[in-house]
């Protein structure tokens, strides 16, 4: 086994730091959402009257973006394209972290490239939309543009490695396998790959501290996650001061 060079040592170390930061950061946020009480029943109605109904409502929200569809068809189209292609691209990347590569991952690989193009297009569309629609431009801050630029650049550098500056895929795979098996291997000293990987690390480190937490946060949104049954089942507010002032 060859010795780990300086570049790879730095990136392997960074990788573990970012993984730890991501996991701890997300866990801390999720714990905060989960541990904070809901004093009152506030589902947006009409709402499901059973737990099973809430699961279905949440699934429609998370998979189909139902409320966004009601709100704005073009944004919905851009949003669903962005998320679906992102999911396919992530899935395709499992081929760098598994050996042997599961058949489904191998099957998806060609679609994955198409998805990469779609992701780049969706990010670009959402970016232009932020600038072009006066209401959306008003509310957009640097952080909103940053997130789109980050993901767009990831897609762009990824596609560049496929179509323009071919990188040593075997070496990439060794490096990735090394990370997940805790036996780091050398990474290709390829500028595009290094840039791509840096962007991944940035995304991972940025995630828990940003609006990207919407991914986990939605499951805790009381207006979507609560059952509409306040008369049937008494909801107790854990912090209510229950000292009665009445004569009852």
């Amino acid at each position: 086994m060859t010795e780990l060079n300086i570049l790879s040592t730095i990136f392997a170390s960074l990788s573990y730091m970012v993984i730890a930061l991501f996991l701890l950061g997300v866990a801390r946020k999720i714990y905060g959402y989960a541990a904070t009480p809901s004093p009152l029943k506030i589902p947006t109605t009409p709402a499901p009257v059973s737990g099973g109904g809430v699961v279905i409502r949440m699934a429609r929200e998370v998979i189909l973006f139902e409320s966004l569809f009601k709100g704005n068809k073009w944004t919905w189209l851009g949003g669903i394209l962005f998320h679906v292609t992102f999911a396919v691209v992530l899935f395709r990347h499992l081929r760098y972290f598994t050996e042997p590569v599961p058949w489904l991952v191998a099957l998806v690989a060609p679609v994955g490239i198409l998805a990469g193009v779609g992701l780049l297009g969706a990010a670009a569309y959402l970016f232009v939309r932020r600038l072009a629609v006066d209401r959306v431009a008003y509310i957009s801050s640097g952080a909103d543009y940053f997130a789109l630029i980050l993901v767009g650049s990831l897609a762009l550098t990824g596609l560049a490695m496929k179509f323009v500056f071919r990188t040593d895929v075997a070496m990439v795979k060794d490096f990735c396998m090394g990370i997940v098996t805790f036996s780091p291997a050398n990474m290709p000293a390829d500028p595009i790959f290094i840039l791509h990987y840096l962007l991944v690390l940035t995304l991972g480190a940025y995630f828990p501290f940003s609006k990207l937490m919407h991914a986990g946060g939605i499951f805790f949104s009381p207006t979507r996650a609560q059952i509409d049954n306040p008369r049937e089942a008494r909801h107790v507010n854990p912090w209510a001061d229950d000292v009665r002032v009445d004569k009852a």
Partner: protein
Amino acid sequence: MAGKIETPPLTGDKLPIPPVSPGAMANLSPNRAAEGHNTFLNFPGVRVGDWKEKAVEKMGDLLDKYKSLRVFMDICVKCGSCTDKCHYFLGTGDPNNMPVARQELMRKVYRKEFTLGGKLFPGLSRAEEMSEDVLAQWWSYYHQCSQCRRCSVYCPYGIDTAEISMAAREIMDSVGVGQKYCNEILGKVLEIGNNLGINPHALANTLEFVEEEQEEESQVKVRYPMDESGADVLLIAPSADFFSSPHIEGFTGYGKIFHEAGVSWTVSSYASEFANFGMFIGSYDTMRRVAERIREAAHDLKVKRIVVGECGHAWRVGYSFWNTLIGPFDFLDPSYRTPTHICEFTWDLIQRDGVKLDKSANDERVVTFHDSCNVSRASRMGDMPGGQYDIPRNIIKAVCNHFVDMDEETIKEATYCCGGGGGLLTDELMDLRVKGALPRANALHGVMESHGVNTMAMICAICKAQFTKVLPYYHIPMDMVASVHQLVSSAVVLGGKKGV
């Protein structure tokens, strides 16, 4: 006055989305509460010296107490879906009346004080510390939200601006910056028993008056009792039902329905208010204190059940919050829902054929129904989701021959606020109230033109008061506005059935 507030001509077609007009409504804000109004509710009388620190401290406290606030502060991606959904934005074009921008007024302080990113890179996410300027924005724009929840319907994460404006108002109250309209009224309800300050003697006179008027009109005596211990039903109505038109006509209708049902009932002089402005100011304790009087009255009068009148936000408090705030209702008859909405009661009676109705009594009316925001998006009636839409419509169709719905993008869960909810029904905010009524007035105009609608029925005291005041600005007559139970009242044939 009517000439000073400009209203666009109504088309009845889909409203255009206005271009953003920064600062259009920046100078509008409500009157400040007097010292006594604040202290009565256990808030500091005047703004405290270290208000910035105290406000941030209160925000931290609320972040730990309300899952809604904690999650909503974090997860907005600013997709813009809500930006054209608020009636106040559609009516004013002020970008701070876009729900997301209204939320951002609090989020920018949240980021600065409670997030690492906001502390390290305030410029990137527009993080900002609490300041006189921020407070002025909060004071103005958190009092330009009627907490109607329309934005939350279209948010992919269900972010509800009402939760945020409630929190903002609670933070402001906690540092001695209170709103006069809400806090003064809360003082009245806690001291006298209702928002209008009607004392028991005056209330008894009013009920006597209603009883006499009704008997004169129909030649049948229907009782409107007060403080009758042992009655089956305690009726809790918004106090406007005792006072103004068309509310009182609806109240007359409740009495006829109880009469026909053969159910004994009473109002309470101690708890003569269904409205609960504690919700508007986001104060759990105040909301509970106001509701507690109702529990006490129900207990003392030894009733079997509580039925409530036509009031939107109060139905939210009653339906969604009472069981938590003042439950369990183990001293009431468990075979009834607590509370029962008067519409649930009436529809149940109609379905059981317990009341004789003469639809032709309303034949001069072509009726549409305005879904009140809190009923539509924060409550339910009956057993099925959406019962809050069907039951009032079913009642109207049972008592009127001519009913037509407004544009479907303006009713049911998509309904527009009347423009006066959420503690904004006060004269100094008239400019906002008129402009905020634009989407509803426009849709109403549509069915007036296409179907000759001459009556808009509703089940909310605030909607009734707001529309009678602002519709004339759009050249729509105020007598369009009707209570659902006013229509019921006209159609009931007294003594036509034996009741239950």
